[in-house]
């Protein structure tokens, strides 16, 4: 019983950054822009959140700063892939290469040359920091970001499927020329979506460094963005699908933690591979079968078909 509660608690905790990142992926790819740079945007979000929380002492402001920073990095991707019709994979890879370096640079710059930040103020838990402290039940007192991720999933789903903006975003991702002939500004829609994806990824980074752990380290974000991308595919590019997929990946990470403690004989190095191995397995099984938005990854150039 105790271990089930523990499993649920850790699953919810670890899935949260993934959910933010995956929602970013959903929004961007639904508008037709592949965003492989989610990882990099999460890294930037993670470091900015830690810095902002350290200097303002207010984790809420830090959370917003992280979103802003992620959005800023995403703007680079938008300019390259929307305005200049650059190869979206290359642009995303560039961001993933750039971000860890930039994060380390910022970190050393703000914290006297240290490669990691000091302990910073965290966002609160949902039921207050001392609820059932010391018992296994405290594991269910999740971070406030976990609830925010759930609400954001609901919000993204509602906008995508129930409003005219969502209809337009989906149309642009499927058939941009059709949207264009109906007076929809394809470039504007894509810019907004890509920048929003960066904002969400930034939130994801923040929910790692100012909610789960309380500092920025170079390994705080290590592949979470890529797992989030896998979740987008596994979740068939829908917000709830991605949410569910992130839960699954979160659960494997929780298993790693659970199995790692105690008398099990599985080496921790093998256990640590579990989430990544799971990602590969899921991609092998599902990548061909799920249907991506038709114009995903294809730059839109006016006048071409």
């Amino acid at each position, binding site marked *: 019983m105790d271990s089930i509660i523990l499993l649920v608690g850790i699953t919810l905790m670890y899935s949260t950054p993934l959910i933010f990142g995956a929602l970013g992926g959903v929004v961007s790819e639904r508008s037709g822009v592949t965003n492989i740079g989610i990882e990099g945007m999460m890294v930037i979000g993670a470091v900015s959140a830690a810095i902002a929380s350290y200097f303002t002492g207010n984790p809420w402001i830090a959370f917003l700063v992280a979103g802003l920073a992620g959005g800023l990095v995403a703007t680079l991707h938008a300019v390259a892939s929307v305005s200049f019709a650059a190869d979206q994979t290359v642009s995303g890879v560039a961001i993933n290469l750039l971000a860890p370096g930039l994060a380390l640079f910022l970190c050393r710059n703000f914290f006297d040359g240290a490669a990691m930040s000091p302990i910073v103020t965290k966002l609160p838990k949902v039921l207050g920091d001392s609820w059932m402290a010391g018992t296994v039940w405290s594991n269910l007192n999740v971070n406030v970001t976990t609830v925010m991720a759930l609400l954001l999933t609901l919000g993204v789903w509602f906008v995508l499927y*129930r*409003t*005219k*903006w969502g*209809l*337009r975003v*989906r*149309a642009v991702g*499927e*058939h941009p*020329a*059709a*949207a*264009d*002939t*109906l*007076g*929809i500004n394809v470039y504007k829609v894509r810019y907004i979506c890509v920048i929003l994806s960066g904002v969400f990824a930034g939130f994801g980074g923040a929910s790692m460094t100012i909610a789960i752990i309380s500092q920025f380290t170079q390994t705080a974000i290590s592949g979470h963005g890529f797992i989030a991308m896998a979740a987008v595919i596994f979740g068939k590019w829908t917000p709830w699908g991605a949410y569910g997929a992130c839960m699954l990946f979160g659960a494997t990470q929780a298993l790693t933690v659970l199995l790692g403690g105690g008398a099990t004989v599985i080496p921790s190095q093998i256990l640590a591979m579990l989430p990544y191995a799971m990602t590969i397995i899921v991609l092998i099984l599902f990548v061909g079968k799920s*249907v991506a938005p*038709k114009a995903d990854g294809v730059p839109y150039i006016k*006048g071409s*078909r």
Partner: protein
Amino acid sequence: MEVSSEYAVQMHGILKKFGAFTALDHVDLDVKRQTVHAILGENGAGKTTLMNILYGLYQADEGGVFINGEEAQITSPTEAIRRGIGMVHQHFMLVENFTVTENIILGDEVCGAAGVLDMKKAREEVLAISQEYGFDVDPDARIEDISVGMQQRVEILKALYRGAEILILDEPTAVLTPPEIEKLIEIMHDLTSKGKTIIIITHKLKEILESADECSIIRRGVYMGKVDVKESNETDLASRMVGRNVNLKVEKTKAHPGEVLLSIRRLTVADERGIDQVRELDLDVRSGEIVGLAGIDGNGQQELVDAICSLIKVKAGRIMVGGHEVQNTTPRNVFEHAVATIPSDRHRWGLVLPMMVEENTVLERHGEDLFGKGIMLDYDKLHEYTHTLVERFDIRPSGCEQERMSGLSGGNQQKAIIARQVSYVPDILIAFQPTRGLDVGAIEFVHKTLIAERDRGAAILLISYELDEVMDVSDTIDVIYHGKIVGSFEQGTVDEKELGLLMAGGGSQ
């Protein structure tokens, strides 16, 4: 002509340049209200460019546009829509996994508060217009599930929903079956009787005669005047369009078929999703005859050709070339059995556009001793060989051997492919959509070449979505529907109506 409110659309002195190329050289267009007005011209003549200017997708460098007698600055599709102009593009602008209603309201949505869609109301509005014009469209169906003819009606509805009074239809019949074309013409006449004005862009003469009141002709970007369709005929229109007399009738002698060279028995082929596209198909092509396969796109033609060329595996059945089974081998093996193929999409399968013409002409034979020693290519020999082909097939511009293939016009690219395939002196020639996107002059050339190959003794399988082409060129006409041959006729023993019915899955067989 004077600007007057009698005309729904007037475009005067339109000049449009793309770089150094003049696409439209002071073209005029005067479209009377409540008429069907055709714009006729060869491929690349500038018809679509002219309409894209009217619809605000391009801006003219010179000239004026007048809508109902008023000068209009149309700078975007939004502005065109506001002025009551709607356009149905040749390649439909529909989101395939959206419903009919979603496609129609996109960009002009029916909303409650705060941008929340009111799909119920939207559905009712769509249903109301659909019924007003007798379109019979299911508002809840997904685009990918409905027929091409139905999709086209959705496109027209999209324009009507936005209050279009002037409808531009770009090559509207290119993708339709004969019964669908009839229905479209009916719809066009119904729309004009309800006050709409229609402009259709086409290079199909027969449809102009059946549907249009007036016809403006553009030749290489130059306006060639306007004709009253009632006082014209096909030959007249064709020669005005091309600028010389064209022989529309395919001239050939009677076929003298010999032995069976290509024999297909109970062939079943699945597509990449595992769905059977060719089902137990039987087909024979004899030496010295052209067998035409009539059918609508997507009835297994692509899979059939891919299977013959060994590009995909067959599930069951045999493909015999001159007595040898060739199914499930390699394209090279099929080629070595003297089968040559003119592919349906010259850019995807036929040519390597960034390479030179002379490299393209030896693509399948570059390893032969004729073109070099060992692993070396002898470019002088390539050049010499290609030069004879360029001369013989009149590929223009002459002396283009070392130009990039992408620099040639579509018609000349097609000539290059045909020259290459014919130069193999094949026993069997598969011609899949050989005149796709070509204009009247080039079509004439392709047909003549096919017939010359037949007379040489080759077995020719012609697969085309153009029913007229199949009827004119073939000695034997087979109809393919749902992956099966559902009818076989000698040329002249069957009419368009019966074939159309079989192509659409009707008929007794």
